[in-house]
């Protein structure tokens, strides 16, 4: 690194991501990680409650119905869905699939990811609700 390059220290605000909507969307997607981690905690609390018996399960249900928790989970849901949608839309760029020597078009790739998402969701919903 040259002498002048070492002297050059670009100044960047901590709030650089507020300057453009795309930057903001990027940081919001990054923040989805916090809500992913939160939901894993919630999921494990649920599993533990069921493991401890019917009374604990009922207690979990009562706790889960508290307004602040529902509000938190609605926000978390929006972030997790945002993560899922950007992931699905990114797939055609991350993965190029060839079928009989021809490249599968991007929109078709994204569509198949959405179908897969739907199938997995249906199976999980069936497992939970019965």
């Amino acid at each position, binding site marked *: 690194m040259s002498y002048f390059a070492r002297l050059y220290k670009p100044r*960047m605000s901590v709030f650089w991501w507020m300057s453009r909507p795309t930057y903001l969307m990027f940081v919001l997607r990054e923040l989805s990680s916090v809500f992913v*981690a939160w939901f894993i905690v919630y*999921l494990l609390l649920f599993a*533990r409650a069921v493991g401890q018996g019917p009374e604990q*399960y009922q207690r979990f249900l009562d706790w889960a119905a508290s307004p602040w928790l529902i509000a938190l989970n*609605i926000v978390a849901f929006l972030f*997790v869905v945002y993560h899922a949608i950007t992931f699905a839309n990114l797939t055609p760029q991350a993965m190029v699939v060839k079928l009989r020597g021809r490249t599968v078009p991007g929109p078709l790739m994204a569509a198949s990811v959405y179908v897969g998402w739907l199938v997995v969701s249906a199976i999980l919903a069936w497992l*939970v*609700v019965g």
Partner: protein
Amino acid sequence: MAGNKKTIEPFLWLGFSGGGVVAALTLPVLLFLLGIAIPLGWIAAPDYAHLAAVLRHPLTRLGVVVIAAMSLIHAAHRLRFTLHDGLKLGKYDAVIATVCYGAALAGAALAAYIMFAVV
């Protein structure tokens, strides 16, 4: 960045990406049902016996541990770079990375304990 230096980074990115896929496919529906629809009464709370039977199936135990572990690794990696870029805390990367991945591994271990010893 050193050119040919061997680092663990590619594997962390692999975990991030794999965990992102798992989280995207499985978390929205689970969060909607367990966190919103059932607490609000849109859907009747599942019968206890049914849930206990589902959760005690070996594949469910394993599945929940995989979902938890991979989602947490994904989240840890993303949070590390959020702090790195978003809040410009790059110089503390060693500490941040240790705390993030350490928490993810602890969470994964806890998930295994809950699913195989408590449930």
